[in-house]
C-alpha cells in the first residue's frame, strides 16, 4: 500500500503489573484509509493493543508513533490531544448511563471545549448541530432525547460511534464492537463502520472474533496469538492452515449469517 502511514508500531511490549506479558515485540503499520482488522483468541492481547494506540495504556517498551509522535512518551496533555484524533468504541459501549443520547454524543467534543465551559454545559451551537448530524447519519436522531441506558445494544453502539465521530477523528479504534450484540445487529454495526470508513474516509482498526466478518469487511488483517503478531496480510490469504495457526489446532470456524 502506498498511502501515508498513520501509525507505526515498533517492538511494542506490554507487561501488566500482575506479570502478564500481553504484547510481545509487536511491529506493524497502519495506513490512511484502511479497514484493518485485528484477530486472535480472547486474551491474545487485541484489547491491550488498541488501548495502547489510544494512550489509555502505556506500553512497557517500544514505540507507537502516530503521525511521527511517540504516544508512549507523550505527556498527559499530548496524550489527550492524540485521543481526540484517535477515537475509540468499546465492546460494552461505555456510554454514560442516566444521561441523554445527545449529551453522550456531545462528550465527543470535550477535548476541544474548555473545562470551565464544558462543566456548565456550554457546548457551542455548531457542536450540537454536528452531534445531531452524526446521530442522523447513524439513523438514531429520533432517540436524541432518550436516556442512553434505555436503548438496545445495537442502538447504544451507534450512539458510541456518533460520539467517536463528534471528535472529528482521523482514526477510529473499535474494540470488539459487535461481541455483545446479536448476529443481525452485528451486521448493522459493521455496515455503519464500513460507511464511516468509505464515506468519511476515517481509518478503522477493529478487533473481531468472527473470521466471516473479517473476510467481508477488512481491507487488511493482522493476527495476534498469545501477544505475538503471527499474521499480517490480506483477508483472502487466511486459509485453513493459517486459521489453525492463529486459533489453535482444535479450532473450528463459526459463521455469522
Amino acid at each position, binding site marked *: 500500500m502506498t498511502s501515508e502511514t498513520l501509525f507505526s508500531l515498533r517492538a511494542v511490549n506490554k507487561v501488566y503489573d500482575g506479570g502478564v506479558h500481553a504484547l510481545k515485540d509487536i511491529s506493524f503499520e497502519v495506513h490512511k484509509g484502511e479497514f484493518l482488522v485485528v484477530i486472535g483468541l480472547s486474551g491474545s492481547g487485541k484489547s491491550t493493543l488498541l488501548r495502547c494506540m*489510544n494512550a*489509555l495504556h502505556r506500553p512497557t517498551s517500544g514505540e507507537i508513533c502516530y503521525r511521527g509522535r511517540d504516544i508512549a512518551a507523550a505527556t498527559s496533555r499530548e496524550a*489527550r*490531544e*492524540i*485521543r*481526540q484524533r484517535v*477515537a*475509540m468504541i*468499546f465492546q*460494552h*459501549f*461505555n*456510554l*454514560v*448511563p*442516566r*444521561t441523554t443520547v445527545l449529551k453522550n454524543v456531545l*462528550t*465527543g467534543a*470535550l*477535548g476541544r471545549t474548555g*473545562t470551565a465551559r*464544558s*462543566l456548565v454545559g456550554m457546548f457551542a451551537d455548531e457542536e450540537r448541530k454536528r452531534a445531531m448530524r452524526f446521530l442522523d447519519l447513524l439513523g438514531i436522531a429520533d432517540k436524541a432525547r432518550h436516556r442512553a441506558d434505555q436503548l438496545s445494544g445495537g442502538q447504544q453502539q451507534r450512539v*458510541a460511534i456518533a*460520539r*467517536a465521530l463528534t*471528535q472529528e477523528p482521523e482514526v477510529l479504534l473499535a474494540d470488539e464492537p459487535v461481541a455483545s450484540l446479536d448476529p443481525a445487529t452485528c451486521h448493522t454495526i459493521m455496515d455503519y463502520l464500513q460507511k464511516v470508513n468509505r464515506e468519511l474516509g476515517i481509518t478503522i482498526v477493529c478487533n473481531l472474533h468472527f473470521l466471516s466478518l473479517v473476510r467481508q469487511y477488512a481491507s487488511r488483517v493482522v493476527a495476534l496469538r498469545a501477544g505475538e503478531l503471527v499474521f499480517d496480510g490480506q483477508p483472502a490469504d487466511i486459509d485453513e492452515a493459517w486459521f489453525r495457526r492463529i486459533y489453535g489446532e482444535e479450532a473450528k470456524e463459526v459463521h455469522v449469517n
Partner: protein
Amino acid sequence: MSTDGGRGGLAKGVVFDAILLAYLLVLATVAAYGPSPEQMLMLGRNSFVGLILLAASATAALALRRAGVATVGSVVFEKGAAPKSGELRPWYRSFWAWQLLLVLGATFYVGARETEMSLYELTDEAGFRGATNLFRGIFSPNFAILPKAVLAIIETVYIAFMATLIAVPVAFVLSFTAAKNIMSRHPATFAFYVALRTALNVSRSVEPLIWAIIFSVWVGIGPFAGMLALMIHSIASLAKQYSEIVECVEDGPIEGIQSTGASFIQTIWFAIVPQIVLPYISFTIYRWDINVRMATVIGMVGGGGIGTILYQYQGQAMWPEVGCLVVVIAAVVWLMDTASAYIREAIK
C-alpha cells in the same frame, strides 16, 4: 480438627481465645482478691498483673489449640471446625459451648453490678409516684406554650437545614478525593486519600453532642453553635457515604469519556457525576432528616432550638410543658421521616 481456615484464621482464633481467657482470669482475680477502690485506680500495677494474666491465657490458648480442643476461637475463626465437632457430640459436651456460657454468665453478673441494677429501686413507692406524676404531666400537655414550641422547632429545622446545605458542597468535593478508585492511581494522591479518610473518621467518631459543647464555648451558646456542630458531623458522614457511591461507579463510562481526550475534571463531571447524582440526593435528604432529630438533642447542650427550651422545662420539672414539646417534636420528626422516605423512594 480441621485447619480449613488457614494460618490467618488459626492465629486469630488463638488470640481470640487468649483474650476471652484473660478476661475471665481478670474477673476471677478481682473477685478473689477484692481490691479497695484506691487499689483499683493503681494503673501501673494493675496493667502489670493484667499483662501477666494475658500471657498465661495466651499460653493456655496455645496449649488448647495444640490439644485440638474446639474452643470458641477455633469455631468462630476456623471454617469447618464447628460442624465437625458438632456432629460428634451434643453441644453440652463440647468445650466451646461451656466456654461461651461461662463468659456470658460472668459478663452478665459483672454488668448487673456495674449498672447498679436493682429491682428494689424500680418498684420503690416514692420513685414510682414521681414517675406517675411525670407521665401524667406529659400525657396532659399544656398547649398554652404551643406558639413558643412551634417557633422553637422552626429554629431547629433551620439549624438542620443550614448544616446540611453548607455540608453538601464541601462533602461533594471531598467525596472524590476520599474515593479509593480515583485516588489510588498515584502514590501522592493515595497518601492524600489516606490522610483525608483518617481525618474524616476521627471527626465522625466525635459525636455531634461533643462538637456542640466545643462550639458553644467557641461561638457562644445558641443556634449557631448547634448548626456548626451538625455541619461538621454532616460533612464527615456525607463525605464518607458519597465516596462509597463514587467507589461503586462503573468503569466503562470513565474509560469511554477518557478515550475522547477529556481532561481529568471533565472525566469526573461527565462520566462519574451522572452515575452518582441520584444516590447523592437520596443520602442528602436522609441526612437532613437525621439532622432535624440530632438538632433537638444538641439543643439540650446549648445548641439552640427546641432542645434548649426542652432542657429548661425539664430542669424545672414542668411536665405538662415538656409534654407539649414532645408532641411537637414527634409531629415534626414523623413528618420529616415520612416526607424523606417518599422522596427517596420516588427518585430511586
